[in-house]
């Protein structure tokens, strides 16, 4: 197979992938290795500011994101997998690129010019570029018989100022059906999971999550495939139905399709055990 040369990419895992969603992080790393992407973790990265800094302190949100952006190597793109982190980093990048006064202030602090050409790349964009050339015969049937519903959450929405960034609508369906899986229609592909309301107003999140799980089960899906570690957690943690549908990270299912073998510690970390389904489809 003729494949593109190995690509070097800086990698910003973010707090969720580094802790609660380690299986998302590990599967992403394994998959990247498999498709010729060399991930170089951003050394000493810090929290992007998350929804909390965005909600209560704009300057803090910018300052936290800026530290990561200033540390990113100028000669390669910065890969981010968390849909929330990437919005925070892209908004900060936009502000640093457009607001001269602000940029000057941070350049003074970091003692170097800001790289306005920094490319912040989402995991989905990387998949769209790299996966097709690896979709040879040997993987084309790999996910056969697996029925899934795609769950993007609020990732398909962007703040107005990021309107021109790439939209990933339909990407999971396109890639996974190319690997033999069957995408089912449901009503909740871009339903917001409630993010932090899960802590302070759990009843609101439970009501939404239960409706989603119920609909996924009714369509006959084997699993829900998520784009976001936060969505993944809310679906698992706040569902109170007796038989919840297993939830898999996009990076996990792709890794299985590409025969990544070191997946022992991923599925045991799920609150809804996906192993029975994966075994019945001969994926593990």
């Amino acid at each position: 197979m003729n494949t593109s040369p190995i690509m070097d990419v800086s990698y910003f895992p973010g707090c969720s992938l580094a802790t609660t969603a380690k299986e998302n992080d590990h599967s992403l790393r394994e998959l990247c290795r498999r498709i010729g992407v060399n991930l170089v973790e951003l050394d000493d990265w810090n929290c992007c500011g998350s929804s909390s800094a965005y909600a209560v302190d704009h300057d803090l949100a910018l300052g936290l994101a800026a530290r990561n952006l200033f540390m990113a190597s100028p000669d390669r793109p910065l890969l981010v997998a968390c849909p929330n982190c990437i919005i925070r980093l892209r908004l900060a990048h936009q502000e640093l690129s457009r607001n001269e006064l602000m940029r000057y202030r941070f350049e003074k602090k970091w003692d170097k010019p800001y790289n306005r050409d920094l490319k912040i790349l989402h995991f989905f964009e990387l998949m769209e570029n790299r996966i097709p050339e690896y979709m040879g015969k040997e993987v084309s049937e790999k996910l056969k018989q697996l029925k899934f519903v795609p769950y993007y959450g609020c990732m398909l929405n962007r703040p107005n100022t990021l309107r021109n960034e790439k939209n990933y609508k339909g990407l999971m369906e396109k890639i996974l059906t190319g690997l033999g899986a069957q995408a089912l229609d449901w009503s909740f592909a871009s339903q917001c999971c409630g993010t932090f309301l899960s802590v302070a107003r759990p009843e609101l999140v439970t009501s939404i999550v239960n409706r989603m799980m119920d609909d996924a089960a009714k369509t006959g899906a084997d699993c829900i495939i998520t784009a976001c570690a936060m969505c993944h957690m809310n679906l698992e943690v706040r569902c109170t139905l007796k038989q919840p549908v297993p939830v898999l990270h996009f990076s996990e299912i792709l890794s299985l399709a590409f025969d990544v073998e070191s997946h022992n510690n991923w599925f045991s970390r799920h609150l809804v055990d996906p192993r029975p389904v994966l075994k019945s489809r001969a994926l593990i």
Partner: protein
Amino acid sequence: MTKNQNETITEIYTGSDFAKEVKQRAGTDFNACYHCLSCGGGCPFSEAMDYLPNQIIRLVQLGRKKEVLESSSIWICVGCNNCSVQCPNSVDISAVTHALCQMAVEEKVTVAEPDILKFHQEVLNTVHRYGRTHKLEIMLRYKFYKKDWFSDMGVGMKMLARRKLELLPSRVTQMKDVKFAFNQKQAG
């Protein structure tokens, strides 16, 4: 409509210092709103809000600062951007609600959703301590504040058993750089 009448209307709707400040902070022209209710219709949590998103905009235009800053809506908004995507006039509504949250904190008004604010503060406290969020500590401190140890005990234990909650935080080594982000205001 003559030019004069038009100016008068603009002056009434956007003339208050409060409306000007919100517009400046949010960086979006909410005066383009014509109250079509697309935002509230698309909002996944509008049922839990005291004012619909367009009503918040209207109150801002009318300069009713206290009602807006003390509303629950601004805190319930999680910033999923569903509203702004559906808005025919491209008003960045979540930028408005978040600007309002910040003004509510700065002006020390009575916050309608103290639990949500407390959660945000605990998240930022762990970032201040470690440079990264530490979910177990956030949850424990939040539960301590609520004096509620039982509601999430089952799921918490399950998460610990599945190693989804780390006991120790993931840390940044150069913490003084992170503190800089927290101290910007004092540093000017």
